[in-house]
């Protein structure tokens, strides 16, 4: 409930009617409309609010019957998630849709959460006022809103069915819940309460509900299935909110359940001040007008991020304004000059004023391990590659790109991959083609990474889904509908880079899979087929069964490594088993190395062969003199991990003869890992508080360097 508010009238747009606003491109958010609606009401203009709603329903999210129900669910669920996050509660959300009247497309929607609840006195405001609870200067990553919030739902419900919305709310400090019906006085833009009582709210199991909100509303709508549906919205929401437990009952009574897969709440994000690079004229005007600072230099330093005292003085100089100018008394031309200095159009002695980047701790990425978990709970598949890029800045706005790719048998191989787009954890479901995130996927030649793609362009085909999440303090959309991100070169490049890195992960996986399949075939050959040939030929010829050892060595003529990584249900550990077979005619010796999730607090147990740590996340064993026809076993388990955290182990070798099923160790990369580790150790000492951010993950044997992904395989695999 804290999107950035930029008031149109403050930008000199004055007496606008709602239908005019649409033509102004850079409004960026529907909130303006809400602001105007309030303004209208306060100006006592006699435009019926229903007319306003009717005129703007396309970007309020109520332009079609199928979309209306999605919007209503979205507003409710977003509110619940936000409230839980704010109150640091692990969300438990239930959504139910029933058909209230088959003939008239009337649906009844019930959503219930376990959030902090809404105090009785605030209920009217939350559900019945167009503008509520927003701050001006706060810039932070927020879910934002599709339309005008839950009030829009109440309004739509009333306009289409004439019925009020029922709200049940309980806060922890009160013994009973408040039950109230909220309608709207559409002429006065005021909530109308009715039937307010206090009741005892019991859960289904007759225990007392501690806190939470339940909203029940009837509305015109159409329940559909498919890519644009309530189901898809909730599924996507659950992917990027792995900390939430979501249950959905559809109109047919079918129950869908997306379980919580982590107890970790999203990081609480700090609000930051706007950065001069990301500010617009209207906003600057308003800030000047409203500030109580008396000196321009102080105003600049205290109200903007990235502006040091020196920079503040230089900005004043560049704008040809005195540092002691009173911001409130600045003329429009002065403000414009300052804006030009902000944007580097004015300089000091030929130099653009240097500004610091805004802080990026205002972002809350989902983070790789949780994306992995989120994806794997909704899509059943073997391989997931994820990538959270470091936060960066575009036009003064911090942003961060995260991507995930899930690949495997459960999905259609001949259809375009499913694209799951998110902005600040909110699913984007419409206008896929026009979205920056889609375009960045389309710009990658996926054929080199093992997916089908006609002509190397467009959305690739294959049994995969690609998730892409943009976390930013200022998400730019192509239109008020807020369904597609508008073009931005910096964000595009970041997303593209993330895709490329992830693609390399996919290719590595597919190559490994291919190799493993080949190895499996060879084993089937020598373990099953060859003995059968020997037995059958001996039987037909009525001769003794011949010895196979010689044939086997000739057929394999290689050293073969067989690796399995499996989840052990009983011990709750991940068991890793590596067997090295020498099918050559000479004795061999090797060092065998593996990667393991040391960085994710995995623990290696039951490693009876010993060996030693070679680097962070890399363990090694010596296998001395493996005679022809002999095999060596390495076994250990990983504890302190959950199912699905670790599904593949990379095996490397040092030695002269190639090993099928393992990769030759690149010593330079091992050095690089050790070097990075050293840097991190030192960094950890300096900034224990930022530990989490500073750590690149070693999870997949991958080290993050400046140039993207480097691996133990050596360079770009």
């Amino acid at each position, binding site marked *: 409930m804290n999107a950035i508010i930029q008031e149109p009238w403050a930008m000199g747009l004055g007496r606008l009617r709602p239908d005019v606003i649409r033509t102004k491109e850079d409004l960026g958010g529907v909130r303006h409309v809400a602001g105007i609606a309030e303004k209208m009401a306060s100006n006592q203009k006699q435009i019926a609010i229903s007319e306003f709603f009717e005129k703007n329903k396309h970007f309020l999210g109520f332009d079609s019957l199928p979309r209306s129900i999605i919007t209503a669910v979205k507003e409710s669920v977003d509110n619940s998630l936000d409230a839980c996050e704010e109150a640091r509660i692990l969300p438990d959300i239930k959504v139910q849709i029933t058909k209230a009247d088959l003939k008239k497309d009337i649906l009844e929607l019930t959503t219930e959460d376990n959030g902090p609840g809404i105090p009785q006195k605030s209920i009217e405001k939350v559900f019945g006022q167009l503008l509520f609870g927003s701050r001006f200067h706060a810039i932070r990553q927020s879910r934002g809103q599709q339309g005008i919030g839950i009030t829009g739902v109440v309004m739509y419900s009333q306009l289409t069915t004439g019925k009020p919305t029922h709200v049940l709310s309980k806060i922890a400090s009160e013994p009973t819940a408040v039950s109230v019906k909220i309608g709207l006085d559409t002429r006065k833009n005021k909530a109308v309460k009715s039937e307010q009582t206090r009741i005892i709210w019991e859960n289904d199991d007759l225990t007392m509900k501690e806190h939470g909100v339940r909203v029940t509303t009837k509305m015109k709508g159409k329940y559909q299935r498919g890519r644009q549906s309530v189901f898809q919205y909730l599924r996507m929401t659950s992917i990027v909110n792995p900390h939430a437990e979501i249950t959905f009952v559809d109109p047919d009574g079918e129950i869908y359940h997306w379980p919580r897969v982590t107890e970790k709440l999203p990081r609480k994000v700090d609000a930051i001040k706007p950065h001069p690079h990301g500010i617009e004229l209207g906003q600057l005007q308003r800030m000047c007008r409203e500030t109580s600072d008396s000196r321009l230099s102080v105003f600049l330093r205290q109200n903007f991020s990235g502006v040091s005292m020196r920079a503040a003085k230089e900005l004043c100089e560049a704008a040809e304004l005195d540092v002691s100018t009173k911001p409130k008394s600045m003329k429009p031309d002065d403000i414009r000059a300052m804006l030009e200095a902000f944007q580097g159009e004015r300089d000091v002695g030929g130099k653009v004023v240097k500004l610091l980047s805004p802080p990026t701790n205002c972002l809350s990425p989902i983070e790789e391990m949780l994306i992995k978990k989120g994806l794997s709970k909704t899509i059943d598949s073997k391989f997931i590659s994820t990538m959270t890029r470091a936060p960066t800045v575009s036009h003064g706005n911090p942003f961060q790109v995260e991507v995930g790719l899930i690949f495997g048998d459960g999905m259609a191989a001949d259809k375009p991959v499913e694209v799951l787009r998110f902005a600040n954890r909110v699913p984007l479901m419409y206008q896929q083609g026009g979205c920056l995130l889609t375009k960045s996927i389309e710009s990658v030649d996926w054929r080199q990474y093992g997916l089908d793609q006609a002509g190397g362009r467009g959305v690739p085909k294959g049994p995969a889904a690609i998730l892409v999440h943009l976390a930013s303090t200022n998400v730019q959309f192509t239109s008020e509908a807020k369904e597609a991100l508008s073009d931005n070169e910096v964000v595009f490049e970041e997303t593209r880079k993330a895709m490329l890195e992830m693609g390399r992960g996919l290719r590595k996986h597919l190559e490994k899979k291919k190799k493993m399949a080949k190895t499996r*075939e*060879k084993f*089937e*050959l020598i373990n*099953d*087929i*060859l003995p*059968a*040939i*020997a037995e*059958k*030929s*001996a*039987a*037909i*010829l009525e*001769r003794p069964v*011949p010895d*196979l*050892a*010689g*044939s086997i*060595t*000739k*057929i394999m003529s290689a050293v073969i490594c067989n690796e399995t990584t499996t989840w052990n249900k009983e011990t709750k550990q991940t068991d890793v088993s590596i067997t090295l077979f020498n099918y050559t005619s000479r004795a061999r010796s090797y060092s065998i190395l593996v990667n393991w999730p040391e960085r994710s607090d995995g623990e290696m147990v039951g490693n009876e062969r010993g060996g030693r740590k070679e680097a962070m996340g890399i363990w090694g064993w010596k296998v001395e003199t493996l005679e022809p026809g002999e095999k060596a076993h390495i076994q250990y388990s990983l504890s302190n991990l959950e199912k699905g955290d670790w599904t593949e182990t990379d095996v490397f070798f040092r030695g002269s003869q190639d090993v099928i099923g393992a990769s030759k160790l690149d010593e330079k990369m091992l050095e690089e890992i050790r070097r990075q580790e050293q840097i991190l150790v030192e960094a950890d000492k300096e900034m224990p508080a930022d530990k989490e951010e500073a750590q690149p993950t070693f999870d997949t044997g991958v080290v993050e360097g400046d140039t993207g992904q480097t691996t133990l395989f050596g360079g770009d695999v």
Partner: protein
Amino acid sequence: MMARVNDPELTKQRLHLVVEEMYDRIVKGEPPTMTLPVRTKNNIGFDKKLGVYKYGKKRSTRDATSLGSAKNLLRALHVVEFIEEMIEAGKSSTLREMYYISEAWGLGKFGSQNESNNLAEDLEVVTSCLREDFKLRPEEDGARMIGNVTLMELNRKGQWMTINARDDVGDSGYGLPYNVEIEKIQLKEHDVKFLMAIETGGMFDRLVENGFDEEYNCGLIHLKGQPARSTRRIMKRMNEEWDVPVVVFLDGDPWSFRIFASIAYGAIKTAHISEYLATPSASYLGITSDDILAYDLPSDELSKKDIEALNAELTDPRFADGWWQDQINMMLEIGQKAEQQSLAKYGLDFVTDTYLPEKLEEMGLA
């Protein structure tokens, strides 16, 4: 010359040689192998003595170093064992039955019937036996024939029936059995000037309806696409035993050219028994590439596959002579192909009243 071995002991001996090759290799500490002639167009050559195309000297070794070929060797062993069992029990089975029986062979079971058919052919090639020696029957049904020819067929009751393929049959003609060898079919007498092999059922029925066989005193045989062994064998027998010319009337496309080659020169897949199936004197009546232009026939554009097939034919030794090279090149040039039934453009009787008489006259048969 290849002929029926018709000797169960000799058949078994030859099959054992295949098994011995595998066994001996294992004993020597080598991967087991099966050696057989290369069965592609690169390894067929014209046998002057026989007048047909046969496999050349190139041999390939199938060895058990890959899973696929190892499985194939194991299957071969199962098939050998199965054949021996049938020989001993005096039974026979269809290729399809063998495919289903292989379900019980565990690791040696066939993935598709195509695999089992190919393996049966492999064993024929390696052992110089015929599948009849192996007690294996094809599934494919033989041709239909209409015309004034009289055959004797041994029926299920063991009696010889005399059948005239014009007077004793209905409109669909006489259906040839899969076995057309002397112990099953005897050629008694005929009064035809030539035999005409026809690719499609539609054209066969057209000629029958128009009474073409009686008017031109010929026998009509429906090939049903790529002709079965028995179809090619009966044409060969009639051609040899009665000295009746064979003309072949097909669609005008690259695949028809291949059908003709398999009738006249021998098919690549069955080049080990070409002398037994091919009719070297058979001649191609149409549709030729010239016909498409000369008769201005409604035609279709060549597909990518068609063009690939034509290019492959240009390097196929069976099409090496000048006439075929011209026909193939012309088809590539005009980029069109035509069906037999496109002659209907000029009416239902055009084929029997105009086209065939003109073509037969060119060939000196009308």
